[in-house]
């Protein structure tokens, strides 16, 4: 069985037959602990390297000590490179010099070096010197690059914290985060007042760019979504109200829904996805390029240079987008109502303007400003907090969108409760 472990080139059999049996008997003792890879190597040899002989090796005793001879074709891609067994050199006395015989090797690449590296490390453990001069120069040069000790495994990552510890850690970091965002907000507000008095370091060209991006460029998508929402509300309402011959109240339904909730919330959700995501990606990419570090070194505060224009642009544009969204939403409702129901345009218009009061209007107007500030602040904060790799940019953008949308809906719920309390 052992004889089968080694693939010997036919030409070689005769020449090495005596040393081979010697070697085989040496290995017999260690057969039980022998590295299983040797057998694997035999089974694997060798559909890929047909035509070339499989790699094989043999340890023999020469005149000046042990000799490791290598035969066959040693290419890494064949997948048939054997491992040198851990006890492969046990037979050689410590302090001896191991020579190599590579005359019978055919093609070779780094696969052979991988095997020689095994020998080198095991030889180092057993205090056996490798006579690398007996290797061809290319092999020697590559082998010399390799360390003779295995890599020190890095300490395993700390285990997951027990539940209570994890809960405490999460709570603390959550509270810290709220504090950070709040102080960031405070700094931005302060920067805003400085900007009003003309003493801020914010560049107005940045504010203009951000505002253009968050305002005029968003009109199309905000328009389409609000138009469709208005149309859907009218459609749903018309089907039910028609049964009671109260079709005209579709106008009230659409009007109140758009003014109180839908226009502000839908616009905020769009802006969280569109602008919030882009702010987070932009700032986290700047983080990766060390641009934020450069700002800090110059003493240019990120709060006024980066965050203020981002937040201000949303605070400025959101109310206007809200108004625009209301208008377009009512238009959507109008188109559906006129085409489905037997009502006049003038009737629809009259019913719409009498359906809601100015208080509701102002309330939602303020709400959209809060949404804008929230989206701007959180997305910038998430961008600043992000790591520096490409994957981190993706994570930051995703997180900004998710936090933006969930936060907008949560804030809307709070506003709904407040509205109920103050009776709007």
């Amino acid at each position, binding site marked *: 069985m052992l004889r089968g472990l080694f693939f010997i080139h036919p030409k070689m059999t005769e020449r090495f037959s005596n040393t081979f049996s010697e070697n085989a008997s040496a290995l017999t003792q260690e057969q039980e602990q022998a590295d299983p890879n040797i057998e694997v190597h035999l089974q694997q040899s060798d559909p*890929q390297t047909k035509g070339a002989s499989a790699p094989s090796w043999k340890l023999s005793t020469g005149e000046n000590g042990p000799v490791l001879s290598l035969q066959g074709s040693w290419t*890494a*891609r064949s*997948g048939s*490179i054997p*491992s040198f067994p851990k006890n492969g050199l046990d037979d050689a006395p410590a302090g001896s010099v191991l020579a190599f015989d590579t005359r019978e090797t055919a093609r070779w*690449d*780094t*696969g052979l*070096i*991988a095997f020689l*590296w095994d020998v080198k490390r095991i030889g180092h453990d057993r205090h056996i010197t490798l006579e690398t001069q007996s290797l061809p*120069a*290319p*092999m020697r*040069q*590559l082998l*010399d*690059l*390799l*360390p003779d000790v295995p*890599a*020190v495994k*890095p300490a395993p990552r700390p285990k997951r914290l027990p539940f209570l510890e994890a809960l405490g850690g999460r709570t603390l970091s959550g509270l810290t985060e709220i504090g950070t965002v709040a102080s960031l907000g405070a700094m931005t507000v302060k920067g805003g007042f400085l900007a009003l008095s003309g003493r801020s370091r914010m560049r107005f060209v940045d504010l203009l760019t951000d505002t253009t991006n968050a305002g005029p460029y968003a009109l199309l998508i905000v328009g389409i979504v609000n138009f469709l929402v208005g149309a859907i509300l009218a459609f749903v309402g018309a089907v039910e109200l028609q049964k009671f011959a109260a079709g005209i109240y579709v106008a009230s339904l659409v009007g109140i829904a758009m003014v109180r909730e839908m226009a502000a919330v839908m616009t905020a959700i769009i802006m969280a996805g569109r602008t919030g995501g882009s702010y987070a990606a932009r700032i986290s990419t700047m983080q990766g390029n060390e641009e934020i570090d450069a700002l800090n070194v110059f003493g240019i505060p990120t709060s006024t240079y980066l965050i203020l224009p981002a937040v201000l642009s949303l605070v400025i544009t959101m109310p206007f987008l809200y108004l625009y969204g209301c208008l377009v939403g009512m238009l959507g409702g109008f188109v559906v109502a006129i085409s489905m129901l037997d009502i006049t345009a003038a009737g629809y218009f009259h019913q719409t303007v009498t359906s809601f009061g100015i208080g509701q209007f102002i309330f939602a107007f303020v709400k959209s400003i809060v949404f804008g500030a929230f989206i701007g602040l959180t997305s910038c904060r998430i961008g600043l907090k992000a*790591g*520096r*790799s*490409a*994957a*981190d940019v993706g994570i930051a953008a995703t997180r900004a969108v998710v936090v933006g949308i969930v936060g907008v809906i949560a804030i809307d719920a709070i506003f709904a409760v407040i509205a109920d309390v103050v009776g709007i």
Partner: protein
Amino acid sequence: MSDTRPTVLSMKDVTLAFGPKVIQKNITLDVKKGSIFAVMGGSGCGKSTLLKSMIGLLRPTTGEYLVDGVPYWDGSEAERTELNHRFGVLFQSGALWSSMTIGENVALPLQMFTDLKPDVIRRLVELKLGFVGMLQAIDLQPSEISGGMRKRAGLARAIALDPDVLFFDEPSAGLDPITSARLDDLILNLRDGLGATIVIVSHELSSLFHIADDGIFLDAKTKIPIAHGSPRDLRDHCDEPQVHAFMHRERDEEGRN
């Protein structure tokens, strides 16, 4: 100078351009097997663009590019990918995939283009990282290691598939002289050990004199190559004032006004 070694890469009268903007024209070069070929020239002369076109990222507007005698751009995309498997590229800042560990970076080409088993791949990854002295960083993220280590890890990734041709874009940029000299020795060792051909873009003179044995000098003003030969030859024998100034670190007095 007669060189009997076979030609691996060859360009004939190639023009490189981005749209209407010509970067370099009349590029003719032969990279011999086993040589270390330097692409030299001042900043902005199109060295990296030439490298890009050699690794198949930029198609020349005119001229012919042959890899082992095969016209590179005439083949299908699949054939080009096949040729590219013979290339290994070390990008200027390593260009490691930041979402993977160093070990996974080196393993990815092996997983993609060979049928090797995971433990065999792991062994080869350790070997390649061992060559560049980065074994201890196998499980670290690219963001956790220094710039020089990133470059060495990038080199380990470049040699993952035992390429025939290795391309280096500014290998010593941003490295200290000792690390840079070590990298030069490593390049020489890998060239001799793997039998690879090396194309190197650099303006690090000491490293060019040390390792390169052939090259081309690109001129930024005239947008044509103005000299061919090894950096040492160009330093000692080239009369072209631009080349002379570059090789001797002289200020180009005429050019400054």
